[in-house]
């Protein structure tokens, strides 16, 4: 029953949605954003309406999260909660309504990012699972697994500054941002590797060529689209594609 949304937990809700939810996870520099972008292009070319959303982008929370990070006001718990607010806002306003309406939703990072980062910061795993259990399980979760030196290399070349929290400086792993970033990414990778089986990730070999990875992803997604019908016919109303402007 891989094709269907698994049950929604939390707040006493148990529901199946007619839409499809595909998410990508992985360390910074694993290439997941490139892949999810190509996926969107492909799905749209197939005539589907696709809704895309990324981590930490709620209009409501963005400014406050930024301010808090800049002032270095966050503890592991408030760091976790403020990101949960951001996710909840996007989930309730964007992700869930689109899924209920029967659309395809793509997420660049999902609850697993929070699991990996917040556990690394010292939050309790069970508390975190409870925190996010209002979120539906994805139809397919892709985990882009790359050896640490490869993802680090991609990020560290062409980047002069690594932000404080991005480097996990608040964990006190090292005084040097680059060193801290390396150690932090190592812990995050370990977290992803640990949850991969339990969460049913599709593990992508992020060292393969971009085209190869994309082909594999498309084949997997095609299977989950058997029997799926877009609730709207985009070919008849092309103006919807660029709606909003």
């Amino acid at each position, binding site marked *: 029953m891989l094709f269907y949304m698994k049950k929604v937990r939390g*707040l006493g809700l148990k529901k199946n949605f007619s839409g499809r939810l595909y998410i990508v996870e992985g360390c910074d520099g694993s290439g997941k954003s490139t892949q999810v972008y190509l996926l969107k292009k492909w799905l749209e070319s197939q005539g589907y309406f696709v809704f895309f959303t990324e981590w930490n982008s709620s209009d409501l929370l963005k400014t406050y999260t930024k301010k808090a990070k800049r002032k270095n006001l966050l503890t*592991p718990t408030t760091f976790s909660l403020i990101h949960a607010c951001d996710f909840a806002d996007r989930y309730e306003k964007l992700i869930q309504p689109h899924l209920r309406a029967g659309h395809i939703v793509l997420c660049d990072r999902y609850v697993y990012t929070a699991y990996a980062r917040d556990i690394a910061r010292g*939050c309790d795993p069970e508390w975190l699972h409870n925190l996010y259990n209002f979120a539906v399980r994805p139809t397919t979760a892709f985990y882009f697994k790359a050896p640490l030196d490869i993802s680090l290399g991609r990020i560290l070349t062409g980047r002069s500054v690594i932000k404080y929290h991005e480097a996990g400086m608040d964990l006190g792993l090292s005084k040097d941002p680059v060193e801290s970033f390396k150690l932090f990414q190592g812990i995050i990778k370990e977290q992803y590797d640990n949850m991969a089986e339990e969460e049913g990730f599709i593990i992508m070999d992020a060292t393969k060529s971009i085209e190869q990875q994309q082909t594999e992803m498309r084949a997997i997604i095609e299977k989950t689209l058997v029997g799926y019908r877009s609730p709207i016919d985009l070919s008849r109303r092309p103006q919807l594609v660029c709606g909003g402007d």
Partner: protein
Amino acid sequence: MTDANLLFYGIGLPYLKLSKKSVRGKLIVIEGADCSGRSTQVTMLKEWLEASGHAVLDTGLRRSGLVGEAIDEAKKGHTLGKNTLSLLYATDLADQLENNIIPALKAGYIVLADRYIFTLMVRDLVRGADREWLKKLFGYALIPDHIFYMSVDTDVLLHRALLKYGHLDYWESGMDVCLSSDMFDSFTKYQSQIKDKFDELAQEYGFDVVDGSKSAEEIHLYMRDSIALLLKSTEKSPLNMAVPKLASATIRTRKTK
């Protein structure tokens, strides 16, 4: 009821490695609906405690610098999902807990919290939240040393709200719950549901239920006695709790020095 040796309701804040010993102060919570008289009591208690020589920190909801503004902004637009609003309040409280309440308690302060996790739980429960989810979410909260709950009947709250604001508030009437499109009707229904949920929590969390229809002075004296007892039972207070004139006496000795 909770075990006297426990610091937190749930998982707590594991990375803080807080011990019961290091929390020298006392956390006293005053819960109750809007217009139940909480703030009046907090003001009176603070006055009395300080006069008796205790350092006091008073806290309330939505006062954190982190997301307080976000809550205000979002409520104005009424565009919030239920989980998002719950989590925003949970963030606000966690921030105050870690950055104000716990440091104050460690320094030996008496913290008077004008509302705590219970108000948040009650609001969410009325909005259909899962009780177990809430319990785990608020597992980071420190167990208070004493919880007063100001119990006031809905019709009394109604009159107080009208006297205080001149109108009924959208959120305090629970208009987002859609109990009725009529605000007056909605207020009555919503507040009585809130009261029911508070009553349920009162049992589970061992609230000291105070009859909020009594006069402010009467309630204050009752709270004083309970707090004096609490302070006496755990440590020998260096100062005489019964003497409210101590403040002026302190000033006099300072002058003579």
